[in-house]
């Protein structure tokens, strides 16, 4: 299951670098693509940054209980923006649309190779994970921010000896 989470994150992160290389954030002095797995950050981490994607893993279950071992796990990607000061924060809607475009772009194609990252390097596990088309939530208006969540169901086969 951990390999699925890690592979999904790394795939989206690498795609974000290609799709929108300017979309970066700085956390603890390091500049990185603006996509973060919430559970991989310290418990007392700063509040979520604007203009960045935060992945939250949800429940997992057998996809087809009657057939095979295929499982699905829910992932929510949350993001928000307050626009830019240069534009008097009037471009919040455009900022959100830009985030929407990026997240839709990085979710396609909806599959990637599954790798084990526990050793510090990507070790291919010989299978792929795939996911549903993103479902966009209604806009969340919490001045000065507007944001949204998207959800995808990620499908994978659990592997023996996999943590």
């Amino acid at each position, binding site marked *: 299951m951990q390999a699925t989470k890690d592979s999904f994150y790394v795939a989206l992160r690498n795609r974000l670098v290609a799709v929108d290389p300017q979309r970066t954030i700085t956390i*603890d002095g390091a500049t990185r693509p603006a996509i973060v797995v919430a559970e991989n950050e310290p418990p007392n981490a700063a509040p979520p940054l604007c203009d960045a994607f935060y992945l939250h893993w949800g429940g997992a279950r057998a996809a087809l209980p009657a057939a095979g071992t295929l499982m699905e796990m829910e992932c929510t990607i949350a993001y928000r923006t307050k626009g830019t000061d240069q534009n008097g924060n009037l471009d919040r809607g455009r900022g959100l649309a830009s985030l929407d475009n990026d997240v839709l772009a990085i979710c396609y194609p909806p599959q990637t190779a599954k790798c084990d*990252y526990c050793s*510090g390097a990507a070790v291919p596990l010989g299978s792929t994970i795939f996911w549903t088309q993103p479902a966009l939530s209604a806009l969340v208006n919490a001045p000065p921010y507007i944001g949204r969540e998207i959800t995808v169901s990620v499908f994978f086969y659990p592997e023996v000896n996999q943590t």
Partner: protein
Amino acid sequence: MPINMIPGRHQAARRGADAFLRALGSEQITLRIADPSAGDTNSQLGITPPTASDVQIAPAVVEVVTPAPDGTRRIQVMLGAKGLQPVADSYGVTDIPAWLLGSQGLVYRGQLMPIKSVTSNCFAGSEYLYLLIATE
């Protein structure tokens, strides 16, 4: 000359706060600060733990205050700008309250206690005293 026209008048409040803290016991507190992240894949995947540095700050006044409603221990710490500013400067910090809130916390009797709130007192546009609340 009116007091608001005296240059460097904010130093009076800083020195006063420093003397106040020393008179109350002049303890020392340890602030644990995360080192800059390597920003590599392992740190993003939560595999490589972040390293941290411990910084001693004095003078400080530490008080154990009423526990939080859920029973967790709380401490209140007063720090003066005179003692804190040189440390913050060494890290290139300009916003000290935000820096304190972003730290890993205070080490009190061997236990790391995250900082929940920072209140700064200002005089003449300059901060001179910080009040921190940290919990288990």
